[in-house]
């Protein structure tokens, strides 16, 4: 007789199968992005989100109970959430697990309710839900589940197959709901990611061969002769803390490589840079690998290694789901018992110049990332913990980080964390400039929210594929001027593309044009651009700054 319920063991396998399937298809999902911009992509973000949960699930061993499993899925994905689609995925999983966590095994009726709960939770997490996205696909699946249940469907395999088939139909319909998708000739990438994960899970259910080993992470060996309760086991058993005094400062690329390597040999809890000093806190099963790597780049000091099963980890335990995590962050963390200052700032930014500008404006912690790598909810929470202030303003400076930042604000319980939804670097700069120490948090929030709408942002990058957006035909390799979510100019000459874009941004009320040039532009070329802009738009003040950002040759702001 066919299997009619899903127990925790099967659910764990289905989840891992879904995660791995998403991982294997992430590149094709990345290519569904509307803007052909070489930056933080949906497939990567969703994969990193689900993998964060998959690592925790995988660490539970072969037979976790339902509650522990659900906690790992929900907590792991909430913390690991990156990008808007990643955040929505984590909310879907949170809703789903909330409904089933107290069950022994899941039947069709419970699954139907879980789908509804997942959809409801995800919709609630988004301020203005947009149709034609992952949300629509999730709702389509949940509506179908309800319909099947009402019609008396009593075979779980048929039920799951029907859900998947209907989900695909809804996904194919997303271009009819969202014109930008239609023009670009793609379906919604977040929805595609969801279907992909679901398909992997259902394939496993049906007995198809699906890889469920989580490869990027060393998994603790389970000693079968001595059964251990799942919750008590620890992967990445050593807690390693040390400082690296760099021989020379790392460039952006090297830094990403180092972080990537560290993440591949364990769990990187914290990585912070202060000049030529890098502080690393990580959990790993092989401290030797971590230390070897760091020795390549500098001299080590304050090296501390602790066994997390036997000793207290210096920075608190990292196990468990969201609740354990928020507990950790609710612990008061004032350094040297200093009283908290009233206000602190966190900004997400990529590039030395931009980080320097944010620091000069009073930002306490700059989270490196943004364009190539969207920081996760946990990254933002770590930064919040470092700022000893009563109210912490977070400037995500990228529309794809706003939700992860808000999720972090919800999880941080000991501080008043306010996310100013800055979608670009210039909006972030304008927000903090308009901050006034003597005003209340609410007044500051309101002031910043008002002023960020008065700054226009334009960014110059190149297209990674052919497409059509906003009625503009774009060829791979073309320069594109993107202004606040719209393609303003396209061309093969960077100066021309930039001037055309700037022209579309400047009007009679414009006072100041700021140019931040990226890491691939030299100062002399940038100076020529500044001259051209100054002569073309004579009534405005023009300033030039080295931003050092990757991917975007120029970021321009007009205020």
């Amino acid at each position, binding site marked *: 007789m066919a299997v009619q319920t899903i127990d925790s063991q099967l659910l764990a396998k289905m989840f891992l199968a879904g995660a791995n399937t998403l991982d294997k298809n992430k590149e094709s999902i990345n290519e569904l992005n509307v803007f052909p911009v070489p930056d933080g992509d949906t497939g990567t973000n969703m994969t990193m989100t689900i993998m964060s949960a998959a690592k925790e699930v995988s660490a539970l061993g072969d037979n976790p109970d339902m509650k522990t499993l659900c906690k790992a899925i929900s907590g792991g994905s909430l913390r690991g959430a990156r990008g808007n689609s990643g955040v929505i995925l984590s909310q879907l999983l949170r809703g789903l697990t909330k409904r089933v966590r107290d069950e022994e095994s899941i039947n069709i009726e419970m699954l139907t309710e879980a789908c509804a709960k997942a959809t409801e939770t995800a919709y609630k997490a988004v301020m203005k839900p947009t149709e034609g996205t992952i949300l629509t696909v999730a709702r389509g699946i949940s509506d179908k589940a309800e319909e099947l249940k009402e019609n008396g469907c009593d075979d779980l395999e048929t039920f799951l197959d029907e859900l998947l088939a209907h989900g695909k139909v809804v996904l194919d319909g997303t271009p009819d709901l969202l014109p930008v998708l239609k023009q670009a000739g793609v379906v919604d990438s977040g929805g595609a990611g969801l279907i992909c994960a679901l398909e992997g899970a259902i394939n496993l259910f049906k007995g198809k061969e699906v890889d469920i080993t989580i490869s990027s992470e060393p998994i603790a060996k389970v000693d079968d002769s001595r059964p251990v309760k799942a919750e008590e086991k620890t992967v990445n058993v050593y807690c390693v803390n040390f400082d690296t005094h760099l021989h020379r400062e790392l460039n952006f690329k090297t830094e990403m490589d180092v972080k990537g390597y560290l993440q591949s040999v364990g769990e990187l809890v914290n990585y912070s840079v202060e000049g030529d000093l890098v502080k690393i806190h990580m959990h790993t099963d092989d401290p030797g690998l971590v230390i070897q790597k760091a020795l390549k780049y500098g001299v080590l000091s304050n090296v501390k290694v602790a066994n997390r099963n036997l000793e207290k980890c210096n920075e608190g335990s990292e196990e468990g789901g969201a609740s354990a995590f928020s507990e950790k962050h609710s612990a008061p963390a004032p350094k040297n018992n200093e009283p908290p200052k009233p206000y602190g700032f966190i900004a997400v930014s990529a590039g030395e110049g931009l980080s320097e*500008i944010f620091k000069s404006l009073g930002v306490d912690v700059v989270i490196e990332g943004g364009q190539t790598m969207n920081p996760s909810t946990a990254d933002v929470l770590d930064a919040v913990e470092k700022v000893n202030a009563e109210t912490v303003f977070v400037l995500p400076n990228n529309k794809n980080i706003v939700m992860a930042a808000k999720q972090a604000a919800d999880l941080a319980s000991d501080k008043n964390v306010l996310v100013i939804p800055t979608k670009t670097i210039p909006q972030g700069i304008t927000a903090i400039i308009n901050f006034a120490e003597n005003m209340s948090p609410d007044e500051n929030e309101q002031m910043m929210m008002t002023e960020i709408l008065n700054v226009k942002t334009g960014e110059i990058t190149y297209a990674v594929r052919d497409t059509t957006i906003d009625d503009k035909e774009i060829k791979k390799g073309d320069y594109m001027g993107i202004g606040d979510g719209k393609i303003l100019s396209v061309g093969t000459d960077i100066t021309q593309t930039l001037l055309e874009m700037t022209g579309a941004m400047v009007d009679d009320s414009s*006072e100041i044009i700021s140019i931040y040039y990226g890491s691939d532009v030299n100062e002399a070329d940038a100076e020529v651009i500044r001259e051209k802009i100054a002569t073309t738009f004579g009534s405005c*003040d023009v300033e030039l700054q080295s931003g050092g950002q990757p991917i975007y040759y120029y970021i321009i702001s007009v*205020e």
Partner: protein
Amino acid sequence: MSKKIAVVTDSNSGITQAEGKELGIFVLPMPFYIDGGEYFEDINLSQDEFYTKLSEGADIMTSQPTPPNVLNLWKEVLEEYDELVHIPMSSGLSGSCESAYMLSHDFEGRVQVINNQRISVTQRQSCLDAMALAEKGYDAAQIKDILEREKYNSSIYIMLDTLHYLKKGGRITPAAAAIGTLLKIKPVLTIQGEKLDAFSKARTSQQGRNTMITAIKKDIDERFGGYNCGKNIYIEIAYTYDLESAKSFKAEVQAAFPESEIVMDPLSLSVSCHIGPGALAVACSKKLPELA
């Protein structure tokens, strides 16, 4: 029979010599030293000449009125009046209040020096209030008590076009000096009683204007008992050099405080030389209950 009370101030109040004659207020001109030569505001130095010299990078120093100048004016006034109140610029910004206070000891109470932390348009309003109080029969000592009681019931926000002049003059608190950044920034400063202090920053003039209007509204609501159609409060505007932008700012302030009759004055030159051209300020002072 009530005493005859005179009001004396300095040219930082923005009250010109001509206006002073009209209002019956005696105005002591503030001296300047420009490239070594001595000038007096509104006597032998016009605003235009001043800004030309300032932009040419001339070495401009401000000074206090000399004791003989102060004493001569007082003596002249007291020939006609029983008592006088002297309202100098804020003691937080200049030592002239303190020197005047010392000089006043020799007048057996006939000269009352008022230390109420006012400057420019708010100092001007204090002079008008003093005149009105005198007319109601208050004597010099009573006027001093009333005005000093109200010294914190005023607020000023100033947006500078640049930090350059403030740094040059050294008349800046450490907090304000820290505003210097890599970016082009217009500092928004505030005067609450004491010295100039940093309040906020702006990228554009429009942002700075919005910040100042929001801040002054908050002060009125939270500290001065609400706007109440302007019945409780005077709203004032001051600027340096750029009359056109001051006019458009006035329209914005007027929209925020529709029932108020807004006074707008150029900032006195001894303030201007510390903040440079292109500055805009909005101020408010609470109306005195005695004059309600």
